[in-house]
């Protein structure tokens, strides 16, 4: 009997400890819901570890990022539909080329049939890049019509951003197609800031916590 009691005690003690820990952890979890976000920001779905959290700095940087991403040079290849946009007024691409499964067009209407590895000189000629394409059908990365809040949350969500983590997102600022926005070919407007300024804003947004602006702050463009 004595031996049985001792055995029972040894088994009982961890259960009690675990129960106490569970209560404490639950209380911490419940309390954390009560902590209010700073005014004007909401956290993205995904938060990177080791970020220097500064929501005001992060949101301010994102608003600069947003101006670039919503410029025709970026939004034209991130349409809400399956036809790319064209021109500084972001009208539907003439000829209505379609996205296709891989984002590179369909049948006789593939992007690279007209878009060469480099810009074709002259007005109204196709701009070029060796990798010209839209996002693929299973990861459309829509910019058109997104509010700052929606776009920030989308960019941070690996399920919607092309499965990119923090380092990949930062590196994406110097992707060849991103850089092509600052070499748009004759007669097309540049994004509203230099690539250097964009890269700095992009990195600042991510490094400071990748906060999303509050939903009501700015209406969607265009």
């Amino acid at each position, binding site marked *: 009997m004595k031996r049985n009691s001792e055995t029972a005690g040894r088994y009982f003690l961890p259960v009690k400890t675990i129960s106490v820990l569970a209560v404490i952890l639950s209380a911490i979890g419940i309390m954390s819901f009560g902590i209010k976000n700073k005014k004007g920001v909401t956290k993205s779905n995904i938060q990177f570890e080791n970020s220097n959290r500064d929501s005001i700095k992060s949101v301010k940087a994102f608003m600069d990022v947003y101006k670039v991403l919503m410029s025709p040079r970026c939004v034209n290849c991130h349409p809400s539909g399956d036809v790319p946009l064209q021109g500084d007024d972001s009208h539907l691409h*003439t*000829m*209505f*080329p*379609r996205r296709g499964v891989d984002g590179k067009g*369909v*049948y*006789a*209407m*593939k992007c*690279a*049939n*007209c878009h*060469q*590895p480099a810009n*074709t000189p*002259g007005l*109204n*000629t*196709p701009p070029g890049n060796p990798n010209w394409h839209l996002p693929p059908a299973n990861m459309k990365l829509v910019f058109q019509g997104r509010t700052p809040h929606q776009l920030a949350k989308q960019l941070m969500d690996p399920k919607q951003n092309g499965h990119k983590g923090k380092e990949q997102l930062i590196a994406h600022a110097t992707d060849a197609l991103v850089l092509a926005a600052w070499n748009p070919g004759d007669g097309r407007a540049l994004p509203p800031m230099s690539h250097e300024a964009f890269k700095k804003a992009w990195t600042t947004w991510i490094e400071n916590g990748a906060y999303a602006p509050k939903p009501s702050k700015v209406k969607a463009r265009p």
Partner: protein
Amino acid sequence: MISLNINQKTYQVDVSPDMPLLWVIRDIVGLTGTKYGCGVAQCGACVVHMNGEAARSCVTKVSRAEGQAIVTIEGLSQNNDHPLQTAWNEISVPQCGYCHSGQLMSAAVLLRENPNPTDDDIDAAMAGNICRCGTYPRIRQAIHLAAEMQRKGIKNKN
């Protein structure tokens, strides 16, 4: 000197690397079936196949075409008996005919990738080929007929 493979023949051409492929095909090699339309990839009259894709030769520099398999309307078939050519003839598709080598080359890519295209597939494939005569209904009809002939293995009904 640039080496080009056009319709399975090799041509050595002494031209500037940035000369449009269309100019080389027409003015240097002498294959004039491919037409000049707009010069800025807007109309589709200049479509040739480059490695099987419907490249617009007016904006394609000859340097990009070097070493690639180029096919022009003259090389689409051995005896002008591609199902599309047969269907085009049967339905009398062209009016002035200027755009139709480009139309045929684009339609050939469609039929290779989709042997049984719907009207929507035809729209998606052919929207970049403009016809000032407005022969679009006959083009659509001919593509359906060519698809049927291709599926049945008919090369030439005549």
